[in-house]
């Protein structure tokens, strides 16, 4: 022990230790950057592959080893893809459903969230816990009886089953908006009451305008999740003319296999609206995930 203590006092030992800790910091930094690139390529390469495949003709797809940049570049896959299946019809179907759902959610969730945050009433927080609890329910439990209900009123194969529930609130977005509403200062509400406003006025003139960031987040996520929804349309949209794009992509598969270059082109087009939305609204997008995750 004494030797070790004495050793630590020698100048060579301490400079060596400083040099080692500096070197190990450099090593960690380089390792970190290398890993950042390696993992980044895991995330990036599939996109490149997607783009590359969508620009190849059918024979170019089979060339081994595969070329990343096809020679020549074939842009016709995109025009072929949108005629191989009724692409625009499907896109229109999808967007109509999205529009209804977004409108329904904005109206219903903001009203309900107002009720849970800006008004005091007995049992309010208990009922809110119930709302949260419903988020844990698996969709499968209510799936079949819901189908039966809609089937009895002959609303299967319409967009009503996919759109109607949005007008009655959604636990996740009610939670999101309620948290946001709670952060709005009371003074504004009190001032409006002094001016003679009732709750609906406060909702419409005070809270909603202030809640724009949260509403934008709601719109973005509602749109994205409805746009990409598969199981709902699969169950309820039985005739091909009513299909959404999620369902329509199956049209590129056949008994003989798949039209891979067309499929890749179509998948890219399908993903495009989401990509554009993401790049324009990146901050709202990330903030939305963070607020719901950390609270």
């Amino acid at each position, binding site marked *: 022990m004494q030797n070790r203590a004495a050793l630590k006092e020698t100048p060579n030992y301490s400079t060596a230790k400083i040099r080692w800790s500096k070197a*190990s910091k450099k090593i960690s930094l380089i390792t*970190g*950057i290398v*890993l*950042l690139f390696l993992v*980044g390529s895991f*995330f990036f*390469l*599939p*996109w490149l*592959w*997607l783009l590359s*495949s969508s620009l190849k003709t059918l024979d170019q797809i*089979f060339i*081994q*080893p*595969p070329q990343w940049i096809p020679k020549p570049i074939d842009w016709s896959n995109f025009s072929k893809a949108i005629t191989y299946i009724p692409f625009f019809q499907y896109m229109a179907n999808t967007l109509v459903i999205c529009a209804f759902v977004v409108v329904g959610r904005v109206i*219903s969730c903001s*009203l*309900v969230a107002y*009720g*849970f945050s800006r*008004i*005091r*009433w007995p049992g309010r927080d208990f*009922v809110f816990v*119930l*709302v949260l609890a*419903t988020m*844990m329910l*698996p969709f*499968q*439990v*209510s799936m*079949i*009886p819901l189908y*039966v*209900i809609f089937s009895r009123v002959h609303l299967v194969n319409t967009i009503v089953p996919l759109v109607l*529930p949005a007008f*009655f*609130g959604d636990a996740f977005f*009610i939670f999101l908006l309620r948290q946001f509403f709670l952060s709005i200062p009371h003074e504004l509400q009190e001032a409006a009451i002094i001016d003679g406003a009732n709750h609906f006025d406060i*909702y419409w003139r005070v809270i909603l305008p202030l809640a724009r960031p949260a509403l934008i987040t709601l719109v973005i996520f509602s749109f994205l999740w409805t*746009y*990409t929804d*598969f*199981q709902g349309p699969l169950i309820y949209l039985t005739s091909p003319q009513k299909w959404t794009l*999620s369902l329509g*992509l*199956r049209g590129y598969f056949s008994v003989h296999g798949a039209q891979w270059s067309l*499929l*890749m082109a179509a*998948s890219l087009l*399908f*993903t495009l609206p*989401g*990509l554009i*939305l993401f790049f324009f609204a990146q901050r709202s997008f990330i903030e939305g995930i963070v607020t719901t*995750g*950390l609270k």
Partner: protein
Amino acid sequence: MYGILFISPWIIGFLVFQLYPIVMSLYYSFTNFSLIKPPDWIGLSNYILLFTKDKNFYLALSNTLYIALIGVPVQLVFSFICALLLNQKIRSQVFFRTIYIVPTIMPAVATAILFRWVFNPEIGLVNSLLASVHINGPTWFADPNWAKPTLIIMLCWTVGSTIIIYLAGLQGVPTELYESAEIEGANGLQKLGFITIPLISPITLFNLITGLIYAFQMFTEPFTLSGGTDASTLGRPQGSLLFYSIYLYQNAFYFTRMGKASAMAWVLLVVIMIVTLVTLRTGNRWTNYEIR
């Protein structure tokens, strides 16, 4: 009461779209309902047959448990590592963060189709890369032994939102803690294990539970991967991708055994509740909510 007026849309929605269906599905689970005929009461038959005579039930359950108990932790660890990588103080982090997160935007159907193509045994991205270093890759999604692990790899591609949540958590850890640890002589790994991981443990618990709930209901990806055009081919290859929600869907809408499917739904509900409760209970032991 104005309060109740404002939340009335939710109340109506809850009663019509949630409470009533849940009660009805419990009822259907005790019948042989098939939508075309009115339901006849058959008691516990559905449940008994499910547990004794239905091999696919156990197959579906074990596949789903595999994805939940192995796949979710793998995704969590991976997304945590990604968050650590993205938290480094380097320029152009915005660029990398975009790359890591953008895959979440892709519709699940498109992701599944893309990865089916990426892992194509002959001319896909992965096997072509492997072939260039003279490795004969497995057939990935076409091989019953590789199908689920390949699915987990695909799911790791989409963990962007989990990464965002972890990143936000990492940035909430006070830097003074790291500085005082460095003064004490802690190295990188020690800082990770004694400061970082304990302090973001509530986030890990949250991500774990939400991940598990998602895994138990996962439908779109396995459906698209194992055929996706015909309800009879679901679960290919050899049932290795037959997940619980897929088998449930098959029973309800392909075989129109809605009574049996309702029983399956209730079994799923119980399983999810048990798993969630167990995770929460044990979670309380390893999460720290305050800095000591």
